[in-house]
Every structure is written in C-alpha cells, then in structure tokens.
C-alpha cells in the first residue's frame, strides 16, 4: 500500500509541475509582452529594449520559467505590475478572507450533504428523496450569482437582516461578523451541498445494488444497520472522492461569490489582475489556486487508498 501511496504522491507532484507549465505558457505567450504592458503609452524602441534587458525578458522561455518556478518555491512571488508591490504582500492580506469563507462553507456543507445524501439514499424513491432530488437539481442548474442575488434581495434589501457586503473589521463582534458573512457563506454552501448530496446519494445507492447487500438483508438486518454497518464502509472511498471534488469546486464558486458580495479576497485580486493584465499577479494567484486543488485531490486519493481493505491488508 505504501508503494501505491508513494506513486500517487509522485503523480501529484508531476501534475503540479505540469500545471505550472500551463500557467506559465498561457501567460507568457502573448502578442505583446510584459515590457510593453509596463511602459504602456510611453513605449519607445530604446525604452523597450532597455527594460527588456533589465527584466531579463530576452532570455529563452525555459530559463525564465525555471527562474519563476524557483522564485515561487522560495516564496518570492514576483512584483505586481499594477501596484509595484511584491505580490506576496498583496496576497497575504487577502488570503485570509477567502480562506475563512471557504472553511466556513466547507464546515457547514460537508456534514450536511453527507447526512442528506445518506438519508435520501435510505429512503430512495420516497417523497423526501424526490423533493430533495428536485431541489438539488434546481440548485446545481442555476448559476451561482443568481442564488447569491436572490438571497441578497430577500435578506439584505427587503428584510435588511443581513449585510449585502462582506466587509468585516477586526473589532467586529460575533453577530456583526455573522451578519456580514452569512450570505456569502450560504450562497457558496448551497451550490456545494447540492452537488455533494447528489453524488453521495448515487454512490451509496450504487453500493446498494452490490450482491453482498442482498445477502446482508437476508440475514434479517434492519435498514439502518445495513446502511451504516455494511454500505458505509464501502462508500467511504467514493464519498471521499466526492468531497474532494466538491471542495475544489468551491474554489471556483468562491470567485463568483466574492464578486457578488464584494468580499475583499484572493479571487477578487485575481479578477482585477486579469482585467489589468498584471501577469505576475495572475501567475501567482493561479498557482496558489491550482496547488490547493491538486493537493485536495491528492488527499482524497490517498484517503481512498487507505480506506480500501484490499490494499490495507494484502494477501
């Protein structure tokens, strides 16, 4: 088993590397280059040439890639073109906001979806199951900003219970924080819960059709025991995969939510960076998001491997 885990780890690192190549390639293959973007209107041929020399843009792409990668690994994320500040500083101040949002949403959505998914799998075909199925179908089909806007309209505009912008200050007490963050966290959770619940349900139902489940039923065991003691241990592996998949989906959803509710987070930084063609910023943010996603998938894979008794106790 350890060998399989080690292989998986190596594969994960390889994917990470490939991802960095893709990011670098996407941003560096430009019609115009960074020097032009910096000088903007003031560019003359000599100024461009000097700047390029200074910035080392005349070196071959591979050299520049390794330079960038090396810098990344050591913590130097480059300098923003727009603000001239080190990118690392800019990210640090925003990262906590995004992280907090994501962690809160995860803490709520994961247990909720698992419970709902299990419940509707147990009562498959019943009224509760059908209602949940319809609701989640609607939720995943609907664009996230729609959910966010509706929630905003109801709770912030009409009822005025919660805040429409998620700005928090360090001196806020619990309730003020709650008012500010409730809507973005809820919006993010809705979409994720819908996906996760459906996938949990179908993984568990899939297990119900396994032949050993019939045998267990014919031993006279009641439904609850069948689900919890027989189905669940086998469902661990697919469920873990589902969770990882959806947590990484959340990384995508965060972008929209932060925009709708004006959360001063990392994704906002990225979107602004994209509009301004701030290459170093884009590269750094993309790398961070990509790494988180890859690491989450890696974790899920490894946990899946450990949950498989065939691999834990080999012949």
């Amino acid at each position, binding site marked *: 088993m350890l060998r399989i885990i080690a292989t998986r780890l190596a594969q994960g690192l390889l*994917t990470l590397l490939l991802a960095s190549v*893709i990011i670098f390639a996407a941003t560096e293959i430009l019609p115009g280059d960074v020097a032009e973007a910096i000088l903007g209107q003031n560019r003359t041929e000599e100024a461009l040439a000097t700047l390029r020399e200074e910035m080392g843009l005349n070196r071959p792409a591979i050299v520049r890639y390794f330079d960038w990668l090396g810098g990344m690994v050591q913590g130097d994320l480059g300098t923003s073109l727009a603000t001239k500040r080190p990118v690392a500083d800019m990210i640090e101040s925003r990262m906590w906001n995004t992280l907090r949002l994501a962690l809160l949403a995860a803490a709520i959505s994961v247990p909720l979806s698992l419970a709902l998914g299990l419940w509707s799998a147990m009562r498959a075909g019943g009224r509760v199951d059908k209602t949940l199925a319809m609701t989640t179908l609607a939720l995943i089909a609907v*664009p*996230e900003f729609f959910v966010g806007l509706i929630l905003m309209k109801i709770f912030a505009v009409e009822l005025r219970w919660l805040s429409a912008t998620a700005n928090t200050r360090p001196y806020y007490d619990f309730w003020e924080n709650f008012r500010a963050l409730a809507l973005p966290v809820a919006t993010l959770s809705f979409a994720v819960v819908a996906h996760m619940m459906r996938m949990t349900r179908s993984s568990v139902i899939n297990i119900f*059709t396994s032949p050993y489940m019939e045998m267990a*039923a014919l031993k006279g065991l009641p439904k609850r025991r069948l689900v919890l003691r027989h189905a669940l241990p086998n469902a661990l592996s697919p469920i873990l995969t589902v969770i990882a998949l959806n947590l990484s989906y959340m990384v995508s959803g965060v*972008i929209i939510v932060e925009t709708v509710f004006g959360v001063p987070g990392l994704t906002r930084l990225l*979107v602004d960076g994209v509009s301004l063609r701030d290459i170093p910023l*884009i590269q750094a943010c993309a790398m961070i998001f*990509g790494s988180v996603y890859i690491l989450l998938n890696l974790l899920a894979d490894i946990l899946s491997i450990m949950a498989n008794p065939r691999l834990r106790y080999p012949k």
Partner: protein
Amino acid sequence: MSDTSDIVVPRKPTFAGLRLTRTAIFAGSVLLFWLVLALFGPWIAPHGEAEIISGQTFAPIGEGGLLGTDKLGRDVLSRLIYGVRTTLLLALVTTVISFAIGVTLGFAAAILKGWFDIVVSRIVEAFMAFPSTLLALVVIGAFGTSITVLVLTVGLVLSTSVFRVSRALGYDIGVMDFVEAARARGEGTWWILTREILPNSTAPLIAEFGLRFTFSILFLSGLSFLGLGVQEPAADWGLMVQENVGGLFLGSSAALIPAACIASLTVSMNLLVDWFQQRQQGETVLEKIDQ
C-alpha cells in the same frame, strides 16, 4: 430444437414509446419556447438590441418597457429576446467544439492505449487541476476578451470532461467480445471506432452533450458576470445581470430577470437529461425489505 423456435423478445430501442413524464414534458416545452424565441426573436422584439427607449433608467416592470428598463434606459424585454440568441448560439458552438476535441482524443486514447493514452491523460489531468473559471481567467487575461478567445477557451475547458467520458466509454466498449471479434476478423481501427464503438455510445454521449451544454451556459454567463465574457453593448444574459446589479437596491428587477431566464434554461436541460438517464433505474434491496 427448443431454441430454434423460441419466443421472440421484442426489441427496445432507445426511445421506446418515449415514456414521457410530466417533468420531461414541462422541461421540453421550456426549451422549445426559448428555441423558438431564438429563431424568430428579431421579428418579435419590440425594440432594437441596444436601443435606448426611455430617459428613465431602472424603470420597474410595466413602466418604460414591458419588463422595465436597464441601467442605460434600454428595454429589458428586447435585450432579453436578443440575448437568447447569443446565449444559445455561444453555448452550442462551445459544446460542439468540446465534443470535437474531447470525443476524438478520448476514443483515440481508449483504442490506441499505450504512450498516447498516458501522455494525453496526464495533460488533461493537469488541465482539470484547475477550477474551470480559473483557467478561463488566466487564458482570457493573457489573450484578451474577444469572442474567438472566449469560445475557444470555454470549448477547451469543457472538452476535458468530454474526454474523460469518451475515454471511459471507449475502454468499456472496447473490451466487449464483439469488438474483439471485429479485430480478429482483421478490421481496421477506423471501422472499429465508427461501426462498432460509436453506435453503442450514442446514449451516454447524448446525455453528456446535454450536461456540457448546461455547463457551458452557466460558465459563459458566469464569465460575463465577471466582466470577462461577452462585452458591451451586446445583449448577453450574464452580462445583463452584471450591468444591472446596481439596480437591485433601487427596487429594479433588471438583474434578476435575465438570471431567472438562465436558470430556466439550465434547469430544464438538466431535468431532461435526468429523465433520459433515470429511465433505467429500478428498485433497490432496501425497498424490498419493506415488502
């Protein structure tokens, strides 16, 4: 001989008696409605796409235009109608592109196996390592916001999922005995792909097409919402939502109406795909205990 005169089991084609449910009919009608609107839009819309009809911006429903006006005083209804065409057309083109790339590569990987499969699968995995929005952001950030870039990027992002589905299908069907029999006969790869594997993949691929189409709409509208998709003054639903968010606090629904329209399109499509796939589901052991 008992088996030469056996009773015939009637064949069930994919659309056997259609077996439409109420939800399927409802979903289908919604989609049909939007399709008709897309085709005949310009003749139905009361005003032009970018025509400013009123000095009153963010007019509520009923005043100014039938559904109110937007942030520049343009008729929401007309822009909505023009928006259908943009939305549906873009979604269709991107889905078709994703299928062209994904299906070709996916089946090729399943049939050729070996190095080709390993290399392509790794690359696709690396692409899937990004949340799709992020990838689009990076590419658009680098190449700008033209329609071509948009369509190609979204098509590329969608193709990763299509690749996975096609590859899995190719493998599953490729190991069936009738494919082996064709191979043993001496048939070439092209024959096996088009005459043996493809005809057996139509149902799952149709479902996947529906799902990608929906995702494309959501994705494109999300990008427009972020200001990176279709640009002004075109009437795109996602763009309309983003433009008119400011009106929310003024009591205008100019942002909610296009969002609701997007939702109706995607929900209906999802319901339809769900119905298509659900027809094969049966009971489970748990239900039998209660009988």
